């Protein structure tokens, strides 16, 4: 009798999408700014292109954090030009076509990306340092307990697994 290979029933859990309020907030803010000065709104929309791209294409874990980080960095590059367009709306085109300005606006977004890359590395070093301190504290606590209760408090040594090289191989 042929065995019918049945695939195990695995209930696939739909991955929960990270819900971001970026889109609604962005467009609402842009509309508000555009209501006062459409030139400023255009500048902001143009300057935040890297952020918009990330908002629509970004995937993976911590998407929201990454987007916030890039947004803040990108905004830092765009904000510097807002007073110029506000006071002289006619210069909008000149500002937007100047390559240096473009580098400044879009480059600031790349600083955001850089921060995203560097942040975990820095955090790793900080966490490692903190762990070492904590290990020292634990060792002290453990030593205090052993002094008060004797080595028995560490448990049955025989129950600890034998080193790998003397462990019996399972047939």
């Amino acid at each position, binding site marked *: 009798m042929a065995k019918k290979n049945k695939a195990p029933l695995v209930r696939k859990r739909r991955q929960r999408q990270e819900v971001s309020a970026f889109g609604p907030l962005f467009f609402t803010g842009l509309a508000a700014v555009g209501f006062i000065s459409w030139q400023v709104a255009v500048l902001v929309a143009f300057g935040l292109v890297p952020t918009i791209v990330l908002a629509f294409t970004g995937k993976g874990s911590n998407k929201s*954090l990454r987007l916030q980080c890039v947004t803040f960095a990108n905004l830092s590059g765009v904000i510097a030009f807002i007073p110029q367009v506000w006071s002289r709306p006619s210069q909008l085109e000149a500002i937007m076509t100047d390559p240096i300005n473009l580098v400044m606006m879009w480059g600031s977004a790349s600083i955001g990306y850089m921060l*995203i890359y560097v942040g*975990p590395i820095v955090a790793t070093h900080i966490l490692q340092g903190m762990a070492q301190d904590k290990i020292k504290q634990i060792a002290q606590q453990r030593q205090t307990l052993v002094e008060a*209760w004797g080595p028995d408090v*560490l448990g049955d040594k025989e129950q600890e697994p034998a080193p790998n090289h003397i462990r019996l191989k399972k047939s």
Partner: protein
Amino acid sequence: MSGENAPVPDSQSAFGDRFEVVTSQPLAEFSTYGGDAYTVNDKEKSGGEYYALVHNPTVPVRNEIYKSLTGKPIANLVCPVDRGLMNLVFDGRKRQRLVTIFSRPSGGALMDNSGNLNPRITASHLRQNVTLSVLKSITSLHKRGFVHRSIMPTNIYFASPNSDEVVLGECYSMPPGYMQPFAMEALPLALADPTSRGAGDASADYFQMGAALQALYFGEQLWNGRDRGSTLMARVNQGSFWALSGGREVPGALGALIRGVMADEVDERWGAEEVLDWFEGVGKPKRTTMRTWAMSRPTTFKGVAVVDRRLLADAFARDPKEAAAFLKSIDFSSWVQLSFRDEVLSERLENMINVKPDSGFGGVRADDYKMVARVCMFLHPHGPVNYKGYSFYLDGLSSMIAEAFSRDDREAISAIVEVMDIKFLQTLNDICDPHSKVIDQQIPYLRKFIEHASSKQLGRGMERVLYEMNSILPCLSQRFSNVWIGSIIQLMRALERIAIIGATRNILLDRHLAAFCATHGTDLEREFNALATAQHNPSKFNSLSMDFFGILQKRCNMEPLPHLTGKLVDGLSSAVKELKNKKRRERVQGLLEKGKKGGDITKLTSEVNMVRAQVEDAREFAQARTLIARLERERTKLSRKISPSDPDAQLKGMKGARLVAFVSGLLISFLTFF
């Protein structure tokens, strides 16, 4: 468990200082099963003639008689004068024993232990002096609510060498009827084993008086050289008077008296009134009849045709296995109808007797012995309880148990345990109820012991029953074979002396000692329950033992017991070593060492609650182990290498990056707009 024997105290008691027992001069004529008699000298008062009875620890004395007679002695009766513990040397070995001093009749026994009659005895002596003196003494005893039950020709003495006055020997050193010859006991009582005949009644004393007079008249030990079976057969068939005399008549008035007091039927037996009438010569000779115990037709059991119900009950009792097989082989109700035509065997009674026919599986079942006991009770309702070859009256159980323990007879003890079943006793009572109330009177008394009998728990069991029933009995533990332990104080002092020479470890596991303590100390059940549960945990047991002795020392207001305290503290060393917490261990050790010197166990236990310390230590140790395990887990977790791709590092890094971006954005905004 240490087997050290308690040494005898170094100093003599005040009683021992006053009286000097000359162990080299035994007085066989005054010795009883309860003790050996010796010459004694009173160092304080001269003139009185006394003898000392060194009691046998395994035979319970009749304490109530001692109290009554020392307060108000009875004339013509050997009365106790004083008693106390004394250190004596026997065979070069020093022992502490209970010694009772009795007033000593110096005229010699009417018949010595070899059967030689005192040459001063004549028939007229018997008629005038002996009868009257014995009558006086036993009626005085009966008035006080006691019976003598040891009236033997060897236990009646001339008061002095020159006087005709006769005194009856003592009856305090052993239970009523204890080890009396079969021939010298009244019939229903004689059927029981010699150690368990019970108190009986006044009429049994009159029977013994008659039997003693008969023996003195013939100048023979009528009880000697006769086997029980043939004597019983003769007594049942001819009557006790004729059976003992061997068909010889006692002529004259003395004969009438002896026949009257030796009547086998209690209703016909002479009492004090009839004997006094006889003295005054107004009593009419009373013919004794023999109540019929005969069955309608004989029953052949073990090849012997038996007609008398009492004989058949006794034959069944002597061989219960054969009896069970016999009963199972017959149709019981038909047998009863044919053998007892005058009796109607009601369905209720038949159900109570419950004779089951042979199921074909062979062998004697435990229940078969009970079946035989029920049938015996049906056949002879006035007779003793017959179970597994033992015959006893329920009020004689106390002395029977004491005797069984003295021989360490486990078979007898287990048989008694089986009998101490309220349902079984109630059935026996229901069977004999219309004829006899003996069991009915004893059931309420036995009920309080039944709960202990079958228990295996420390401080209970048959040892507890032994001491509860015989409150005067000393502790029979092997450790105390050299000393007499009659109270908790004496027990504690003996333990103190044991502690000087050896170890007292696990001493409370001694069942005799535990039962003695439980009987003589009140409200110790909880302590014994705790000790019983800790039997297999030596360190906890030692801790509880110390608490236990502390309670006893406090209750008895005892002096310091430094050696016992020392041994108890030494016994705790393993418990102290087992304490895991170093600080607690050092503190407890310090307190124990300090308290050890004082000898006050109560104070020590109040300062060091070892049981609580052990519990706390175990609990805190478990908590410490849990904490260590948690720390280990945390350490393992923290020890692993963290990489930037770790989710935690990612999260924290990005949050940091976001913060940096936000702050820089704020800074640039500030610089731009302001």
